[in-house]
């Protein structure tokens, strides 16, 4: 075996070791805390339909004029986009907020108890210009409304 072959073998070996190291690192970077309540599957879904099915049991919803999604027309900083969801619908069970083009579209979901108003205000991150979608579950049915936000600088990556 001449020197160059040895070097090649050595390089191969070290590359394999690096790959393993990366895999282990990735595993460590995603700690899975045991939280029964947190819908992990829905928060891992890359598609809105999958997330909704996992979270709410259905991805069939009707557009509703009784839901108001307030968000800026243009967000200069995608890392902080203030949004407000307000609905006049009765018997609101949950309010779910999605950003259509985020790597993980599902941003937040709220279960509304008795006496709670159909109102949630928060700040979200948006990776790109996209619709902010609100899904309201009321009386066992899903209703939605959306608002497009133009994002100048995305807030989802590095």
């Amino acid at each position, binding site marked *: 075996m001449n020197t160059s072959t040895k070097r090649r073998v050595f390089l191969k070996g070290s590359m394999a070791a690096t790959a393993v190291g990366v895999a282990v690192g990735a595993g460590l970077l995603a700690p899975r805390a045991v939280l029964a309540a947190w819908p992990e599957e829905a928060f891992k879904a890359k598609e809105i339909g999958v997330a909704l099915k996992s979270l709410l049991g259905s991805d069939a919803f009707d557009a509703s004029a009784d839901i108001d999604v307030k968000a800026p027309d243009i967000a200069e900083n995608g890392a902080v986009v203030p949004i407000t969801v307000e609905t006049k619908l009765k018997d609101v069970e949950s309010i779910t907020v999605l950003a259509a083009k985020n*790597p993980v579209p*599902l941003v937040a979901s709220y279960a509304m108890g008795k006496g709670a108003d159909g109102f949630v205000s928060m700040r979200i991150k948006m990776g790109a210009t996209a619709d902010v979608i609100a899904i309201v579950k009321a009386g066992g049915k899903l209703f939605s409304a959306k608002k497009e936000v133009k994002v100048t600088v995305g807030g*989802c990556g*590095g």
Partner: protein
Amino acid sequence: MASNTIKLRATEADGQVTIKALITHPMELGTRKDAKTGELIPAHFIQDVTVNHAGKPIVTGAWSGGVSKDPYLSVRFAGKKGDEVSVAWKDNKGDSDSVSAQVG
């Protein structure tokens, strides 16, 4: 985790209590890279947030890392002045915090 990560305001008008909570938290997605080292910054974000009214949960939220850093949350519900309200959170590392206040 220190118990001063939540600022909570609760006000009442016309039988409606409005809660405004500001939480100090990095809300790290786990997909961002450190600009200097190029390594991924580990995920660290609040997963569960609960708003309690008179000791009972009235709004419970599940969050992803898609919620902005130092999250703000506002909700409304029926109530009166002097009611006790509280806000609690728990993140993916198991840290948690809660704070209570009286509706003013």
